[in-house]
């Protein structure tokens, strides 16, 4: 676990207490506030409704007091009817304002939540690959769903809380108006309450944060186990995992318990202070009545109001844990939203437009960690329509090169040029539209075959998709599926073989009809049958396109126009197959060694196997 947290650290999504305490709650609320800006009109209507609602709430006890003192006691029945009628009218107003207030606040709240969730999603699309590679999906899911859910919970109680706060102010005003001395004395307990809260808050906040974090850890672990269930069962690992999960659930439970304890702790304080305030009214107010300085009715009103006054404080206290949870969730949400975008469109970036699709690397230096470059001063050029094979040992930087061509990352030095234009000066979307990538591990979505093949080429018709599948050789097996192209794939296409999945991802690239194609060991998982089908398809796919191919199989490499041999982030050799073999360098040795790929070269090189072999 600690390891995973370290990784999250490197991805700059910190979950440490220190980080959180450096910021203030108010910052989180300000951020929420910014989300409210588009809804100013709705918010102002809601505010009016809240005010009306509060006034009606305050009017009820006052009307009752007037009814008792002025109508019932003197026996003034007509006035009684008027007052009862007024109370009925207040009830109607109360109802209407409450309805409007709740409806609008909830609607705005839902809109804001939607906006936040959408922003998070958009942010996740834009963040650099190094972030996405290293951050567990389960943890991100818990932010997008769990934390936004906590905000949701807050919203449901906010409606109540807002009314409560306003009511509080109204009561203070009424008390001060009726008798400011007694009013002030009653309110004298408030500073005490504030003091206690100030002391309590840091503890509570830490507890609530811990709760959220433990919840996210439990979520991540659950996610891992569901995804890897086949391995878990094959390896009889269930009891071990049960123990680990038990530990995490128990951590979550205990952090929840301490959160509850802190949340509930304000209850007795508020109640005690209510009692004290009541006692003040009784003793001081009573003495004032005795001394003739206060009317009896006013004192009764005070007693009624003191109770109503602390009631909202009580319910605010009950909602406080919800609020704190929401603040903690807000921190986690804004942390994600605040991650800087390493790769973003420059201001004034242009669409790449119609270009001659050449790919050029010009003295490129790049490292995932700028201090540790993995690509050192790499320069090469692939002419339009040509295929360049990149070969070399694993970890040599092959995949980094293809990622740079697609601008998944930005170079530290030098330039990457597509059609002669620096990739940083064009929009990412336009860059993506002329390039496609087929990855070693085909990824399919839980959609129909048609949707998967068409994917982002929205204008592709059924006929286009079918044609592509026929060319690739996937049509036959698709046609055999129960619903053909409309068959919905199971989770990540698990109802297809790896080879079939790869064929679909080839078809996907063909439908996209890119000018530049990048293949990242895309044929590694394909069996001999499929290989036969695909060799021809691959030729068709590469025809007329510029291609960067990280090659696994010698057959693919041999057909390339140029072969670039990469080792330890540098180009160590380049040329055609025949040239390279004739030159007798690393490539020739590899080729003579009959390696079908160069994955495992590093170890052998170090053991001197290659050297030994080359001498024979």
């Amino acid at each position: 676990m600690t390891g995973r947290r370290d990784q999250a650290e490197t991805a700059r999504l910190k979950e440490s207490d220190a980080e959180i305490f450096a910021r203030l709650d108010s910052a989180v609320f300000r951020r929420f506030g910014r989300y409210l800006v588009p809804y100013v009109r709705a918010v102002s209507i809601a505010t009016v409704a809240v005010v009306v609602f509060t006034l009606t709430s305050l009017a009820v006890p006052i009307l009752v007091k007037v009814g008792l003192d002025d109508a019932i006691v003197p026996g003034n029945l007509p006035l009684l009817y008027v007052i009862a009628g007024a109370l009925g009218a207040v009830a109607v107003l109360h109802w209407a304002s409450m309805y409007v207030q709740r409806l609008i606040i909830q609607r705005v709240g839902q809109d804001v939540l939607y906006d936040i969730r959408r922003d998070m999603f958009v942010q996740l699309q834009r963040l650099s690959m190094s972030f996405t590679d290293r951050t567990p999906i389960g943890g991100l899911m818990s932010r997008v769903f769990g934390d936004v859910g906590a905000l949701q919970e807050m919203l449901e109680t906010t409606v109540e809380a807002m009314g409560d706060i306003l009511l509080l102010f109204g009561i203070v005003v009424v008390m001060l108006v009726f008798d400011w001395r007694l009013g002030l004395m009653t309110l004298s307990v408030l500073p005490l309450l504030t003091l206690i809260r100030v002391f309590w808050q840091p503890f509570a906040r830490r507890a609530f944060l811990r709760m959220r974090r433990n919840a996210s850890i439990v979520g991540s672990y659950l996610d891992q186990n569901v995804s890897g269930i086949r391995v878990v069962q094959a390896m009889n690992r269930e009891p071990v995992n049960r123990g680990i999960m038990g530990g995490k659930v128990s951590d979550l439970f205990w952090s929840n318990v301490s959160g509850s304890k802190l949340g509930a702790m304000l209850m007795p304080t508020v109640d005690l202070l209510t009692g004290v305030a009541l006692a003040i009214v009784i003793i001081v107010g009573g003495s004032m009545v005795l001394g003739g300085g206060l009317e009896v009715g006013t004192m009764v009103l005070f007693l009624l109001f003191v109770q109503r006054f602390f009631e909202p404080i009580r319910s605010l206290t009950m909602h406080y844990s919800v609020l704190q949870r929401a603040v903690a969730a807000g921190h986690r949400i804004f942390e994600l939203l605040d991650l800087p975008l390493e790769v973003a469109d420059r201001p004034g970036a242009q669409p790449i437009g119609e270009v001659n699709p050449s790919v050029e690397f010009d003295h490129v230096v790049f490292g995932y960690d700028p201090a540790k470059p993995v690509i050192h001063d790499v320069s090469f050029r692939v002419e339009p329509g040509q295929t360049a094979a990149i070969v070399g040992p694993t970890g040599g930087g092959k995949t980094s090169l293809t990622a740079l061509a697609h601008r998944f990352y930005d170079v530290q030095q030098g330039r990457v040029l597509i059609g002669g234009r620096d990739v940083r000066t064009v929009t990412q979307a336009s860059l993506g539209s002329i390039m496609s990538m087929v990855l070693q591990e085909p990824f399919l979505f839980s959609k129909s075959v048609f949707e998967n093949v068409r994917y982002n080429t929205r204008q592709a018709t059924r006929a286009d998709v079918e044609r592509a599948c026929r060319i690739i050789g996937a049509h036959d097996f698709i046609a055999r599926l129960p619903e053909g192209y409309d068959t919905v794939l199971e989770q990540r296409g698990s109802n297809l073989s790896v080879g079939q999945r790869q064929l679909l991802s080839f078809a996907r690239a063909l439908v996209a009809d890119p000018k530049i194609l990048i293949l990242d060991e895309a044929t590694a998982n394909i069996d001999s049958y499929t290989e036969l089908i695909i060799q021809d398809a691959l030729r068709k796919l590469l025809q007329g396109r510029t291609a960067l191919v990280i090659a696994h199989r010698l057959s693919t490499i041999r057909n390339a126009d140029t072969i670039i041999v990469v080792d330890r982030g540098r180009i160590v050799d380049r040329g055609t197959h025949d040239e390279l073999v004739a030159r007798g360098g690393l490539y020739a040795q590899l080729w003579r060694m009959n390696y079908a790929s160069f994955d495992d070269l590093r170890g052998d090189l170090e053991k001197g196997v290659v050297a030994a072999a080359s001498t024979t």
Partner: protein
Amino acid sequence: MIHGARLPGAGRQLTDDYFARQHGAGARTIWRITRMALRYRWHFALAIAVTLIGASFFLWIPRLLGQGVDQAFTLIQEGSADPAAVRSLLLRTAIVIVIASALRGTFGFLQMFLGETLGQRVAAELRMRFFDKLQALSFSFHDNVHTGNLMSRGISDIEGVRMFVQQGLVRSVYVVVVVVASAALIVAIDWQLALVSLSFIPFVAYRSARLRLELRRYWLRVQELLGALSTTVQENLAGTRVVRAFAAQSYEERKFTREARNVQRLMLDALAIQAQGGSVMSFAFLVAWALILWLGGVRVVNGSMTVGELTQVLAFMAVMQFPVRMIPFIVNSVARAHSAGGRVLEVLDQTPAIADRPGAGPLAVGEGVVRFDSVAFSYGTVAALRNVTFEVRPDRAIGIVGAPGSGKSTIANLLPRFYDVTAGAITIDGVDIREVTVRSLRRAVGIVQQDPFLFDGTLRDNIAYGHPDATMEQIEAASRLAQVHDFIAGLPEGYQTEIGERGVGLSGGQRQRVALARTLLLDPPILIFDDSTSSVDAGTDQRIRQQLAAVAKGRTTITIAHRLSSLRQSDEILVMDAGEIVERGTHDGLMRRNGRYREIFELQRLQGSETTDAGAGGSLRPRAGGGEDVPGGGEEGQ
């Protein structure tokens, strides 16, 4: 990942449809959750007791206040009062009220704390049971239910149940007690006025019931849509490379937006219903106030009631205000728990398709003879295997080849009982594998899959996955066998290197070799290689095979491969087609037969992609001798 023979017909029920047939059984959900909470007998009893005491203090304070103030003013109004006596009366009232408030606060604290921890205990238990169930459910379940769907059940739905236990269950006791007690006290004062003042209760009760039913429908739908949304997000994150490779961000955003909008709209409808219900209840309550003031006032004027009595009725109405305000929330939490709890219980109610038979004993592997006896299998209605019969012994390794979808992987999945055969039987040393415990069977059978899942964690943790206590020596030995030790040792952090989700950072071949080491570490007497080195280059594959030859001695091995050279060590090769064995024999025998096998052989030779294979055309049998340190060295003469 299961693939191969799996035809998608087996998985038409993708997500919630899978559970659809069980939706009717949800009526008992609330009761079942309540029973779970009731199992914490003392905790529950204490929470209720504390709630009752808290409620009585809640009722007692207004009464104390009313009485004390009443007495004092009676004294004042009589005019004969000694100010000192009045003062001491007031002081006494004040002190009692402070004490009562402190007590009320303490019990309020206990009530809240006990209520919440009860909810958390139920949630923790549910989380564990959910987890256990997911671990126990067999492949056929997981094939059909999406991870995102299970995650949303395991996270937000359990949260919904927790909210119900703490809000719905414990607090509803409080609300009922306060409302009933206040009502009783009002009835004691004047039953006719009580009828008027309590007239709002049936109305509120009716509205609550209606509200609950309406909300339940909505919540169910909201949760389903949220499940779909979380699937979308999950796949987006897992497939982020594809998304970026196709610059499909805006497409993905549109997809997300559409689904998130759906959730939001439905949510708004549910909230509108809730707002309506809540405000109507408040309205009914205030109308009751007006009625009391009117009717009670008339009665006071008539002289049939005192002002004090009317004041007390009004005071109790005030007491009821807060609980009445809470009713819509409670109703909502019940409605939500009904759907959320239902979705959790649906999973908990699944019975694993594969389980130990009663009286199943552990498997004792003696000789290690595995027999498939007229085995047939189908995924749902799609037949995957027909009449498959063969025998594997430690001294007779079996290799299986065939086109994708021909049933190779199905054979691999049947032996460890990931699925049960539809007809026929699989035996180990003559014992039907359904007669022994699943655990002992899986310990005896090691399987290496083609598309292995690696977990977040270090390489060491991943290799030691099935044997967490393994020593470093054992782990290194297994890694050497799998030809992955040199690679790992060359990494800056060696075995402590972290690998991320789905092992990003390792190539397919490296991941396969880590998975191979993971299985070899378990040292099982029966080994299945399910195309387990397909992404490993031919040279390394050769070295792995040579190393394994030593390991395989005395073990029962089944090797499934599309690369014929991987089957060199097999004594018998089965050629599969459309779920049946169409040819069998040794390499030489099959070559002579000029059939399917020969066809595949020629195919691979023609492709020339795997020069090792082509070059080794004449030496498909185990090579004689050969330096172990210089693998492939004998073949370099190309």
